[in-house]
């Protein structure tokens, strides 16, 4: 896949919704509803994607090769489709996380945020 040849940073910054979907899948393979739940839980309800929006993002991620469909894990609902990160997707999620981390570091250095306690 030609995407693997790309520098992940070329695709940054990601939209918050897209990054949250990648973040949800970074924890393992999930189906659509589980992704929604994960995002809602992690953001304490501040970001609530609709199912249409979610599958629009999933379609784009599948086309770009950042995620792929996988077989249902044992014991899971076989009617649902599960997705997981590809190597490219993981790299891009990592690159975005690092970009955000560097932003946060900058904010700390300017004392916008408190330093992390050791």
């Amino acid at each position, binding site marked *: 896949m030609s995407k693997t040849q790309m520098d992940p940073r070329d695709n940054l910054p990601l939209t918050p919704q897209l990054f949250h979907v990648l973040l949800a899948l970074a924890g393992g393979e999930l*189906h659509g509803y589980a992704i929604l739940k994960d995002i809602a839980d992690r953001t304490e309800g501040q970001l609530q994607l609709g*199912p249409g929006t979610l599958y629009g993002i999933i379609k784009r991620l599948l086309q770009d090769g950042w995620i792929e469909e996988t077989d249902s894990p044992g014991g899971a609902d076989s*009617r649902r489709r599960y997705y997981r990160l590809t190597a490219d997707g993981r790299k891009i999620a990592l690159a975005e996380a690092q970009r955000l981390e560097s932003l946060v570091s900058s904010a700390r250095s300017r004392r916008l945020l408190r330093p992390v306690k050791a």
Partner: protein
Amino acid sequence: MKGAVDLKALSFLETSFVRVIRHCLEWLPFDFRREFHADLEQTALDEIAESKSHRSVAVLTRTAWRSAVSVITTAVHEHWLVLLADVRSAIARARATPLPTAAIVLTFTIAFSINTVVLSAVDRLFWNPLPAADIERLAFIHETSAGLQRMSVAYPNYLDWRERVRGMDAWSAYRMVPMTMNVGPAADRVSVAQADPMLLSILGLQPLTGRSLIPEDEALSSFPTLLITDSFWRARFGRADDIVGRAVQLNGVSSTIVGVVPDVPMLLPGVQVWTPLARRASSLADRSQHLGLWVIGRLRPEWTPEMASAEFRQVAEALGREHPLTNRGNSVGVVAMRQHVTAETRAAIAVLGAAAAGVSLIAALNVSALLLARWQRRSREAALRVALGSSFGRLARQIATESLALSTISLVCGAGLGYAALVLIRWNSAEIAEIRSLDVGAWVLGASFALSIVIGLATAIWSTRFGRRLDLYGVLQDPEAGGRPTPLRLRSWLTTCQVALASCLLILAGLFAKAYLLVEPQTSIVRPEGLLAVTVQTEAGTPGRPGTVHRIDEIERELGSTPTRGNLAAIASREPHVLGRQIAVSLSGREEQEWAEVASVTPGYLRTVGLSIRSGRDFQLADDSNSRPVAIVDDVLARRLFGGTEVGPRSLRITAGIKPVELEVVGVTTHFNASAVDPQMGQLYLPLTQNPTPDLTYVFRPQSALEQARVDLRSALVKSHPGSGIGPVETATEILNRRNAPRVLAVGVLGVFAALSWVLALAGIYGVASSWVAGHSRDFALRNAVGARPRQLVWFVWRQCLRVTLAGLGAGMILASALGLLIRTIVVDVSPMDLTTFLWVGGSVVATVLAAAYFPARQACSASLMQLMRSTG
């Protein structure tokens, strides 16, 4: 119990929300739906089920709302992405196949440019013929009498109607009269509308500068005022800024120009000046005189023309009882204003509209054929995509997008080309006021856009009918044929339709051209070549006053001092041979009446214009106001009244006004097709000295050079009619050309449409021939290899094309015959089944088809078996 009820309500809500979301899911693009529908639906249902567990209507509603909105938003976004992909694909395909793309765009452009022109004409001449906003409420009102369907209104009758008819909330009357306007030393003959000031507001005419006419202008005590029209302002005064307040003399009366108003060519063609009618009311007071006065009324909101008509009839009957001498047997006609002002243009608009629709249809058929050819080339790809699971809807959508993109590009080009054509037509026909006012408005652009969408979609739907029948096996077996369907047969059928429509348009254009350009000019004036005509107004020109006196002796005396010699005569008319008035005529002692057109002429007039005396004599100088009234009839009227063309001792009785007049018939002349109303209406000539009228046209047939005679006649007229309004000295041919200009324009436009449609049809035939030759390349190569002669192969190709052409030509001729019957009323001089026109068109069609098919036929002659075997491996 309360909890149970809540649960029930929640379940009901849940079911409803699920139904709504399922409905929303259907809005997603097909491919997206096929990929994610089940999963998306399950996720949405999970969300709703989870929110239901909170047992809160608010939470459930919020969740369902969020889901539905997100699905709809995604649907819009995904459709947009699909559209962008299709447009990109269409652009790529256009770049890959520039020639077919250019052919499609050119074809559509031609159709849209024609539609832009025709829609502009429809908009101006039919939908918005007047500036009045409430044209549907306006009515044109006239009188009728036994045998005369339309008669102008007697002014006292008009005043009575205003008092007694309740169906109108606004009234106005007007008439058009020629007058002489003196601006400084120069005198012009101008066409004047004498009207109630209310007419301007009824018609929605706002002054371009200055003010409009007001009721105070009608008072005899006030200083005479007048308005001039926009075109007259430009032509006579060079659009001078200081026009308001200028003093002019109108028929010798000092008047002031108080404003400039737009032209109203559809109602008042040629009007240059407006004056108040009431100033002339005293000269109109005779109830027996119908002096060209017409009435326009505005119906009350709840009234229809039929209701008003019924009321008018009652009032007319009452007036008939009150004034039996003048009004008995008279009635009133109420015509809807749109119907009145579009009466003459409606047929022409219908023909032009049909022609434009025909060209559009040919363009759509042509583009369908071109798209089919594309399909044929892409059939393998399309069949594979369908076989691999791509939806047919997706393919159809791609074709539709491509077709719409091409038609939208063509619309822009077509609208531009149409506007340019309109500018050209306006420039070329500046003397036709109706044409001068044509413009491309927002309505026209909107309609053209809608048309482009309809044609684009129709073309796509038509083309995809072929794609629906694709099958992989067929395509793989014979990619040239494109599978089971046979596009060549379909294209042949489409081309047959194009040939039929184009032939029909060519025949109609031929009929119009023959009628308007060949036949009618020859019949409008008997011998137009070498005849000069000039209109003069010698006196005040008030109808009812025996004003105009010809001065032939004086003019001939003036001409005597020049080298110019010839026959000089005069007719009481504004043109050299327009009789104009119709009157009832009967043989003395008999009741049966005939209607005839009448004109007053001087001795020698008939000979000068080219008419001969079949029996009896011409008028003489002795036929003056002191002698017995005499008349000359044409042979048509003579046969109807006397049963023959010999004069004999006959007396006629004519009914004009209150008192019948007895006339002695002194001669019979040849009939002449002068009437626009009825070419077979009989004609009656009276001596001018016994029947003076305000309009006078001199006709002069010089024996010397025409140009010198024109100059000499003008100077002789200036000397013999000092201070009079003398029109330009024109040749009869120039007058005919001016009169014929709108018809020449109509024939020209129709001819261009027909020619364009034929070019499009020829392109279709060429395409069919090329495809047929390409599809039979093996066959031709084999025939060449075994020694077939080129002539045989050319004939072989021609035969195929002729089959399509003759079928289309036959259908086109049948269609043209049917339409010809419908246009009989506007093409009166030529039979709708005119054999010459049909043969000319048929011959031209076959000849051009053979020429177009010759080039593919030459390709067939050069097909080589060796090349073919190399190319196919």
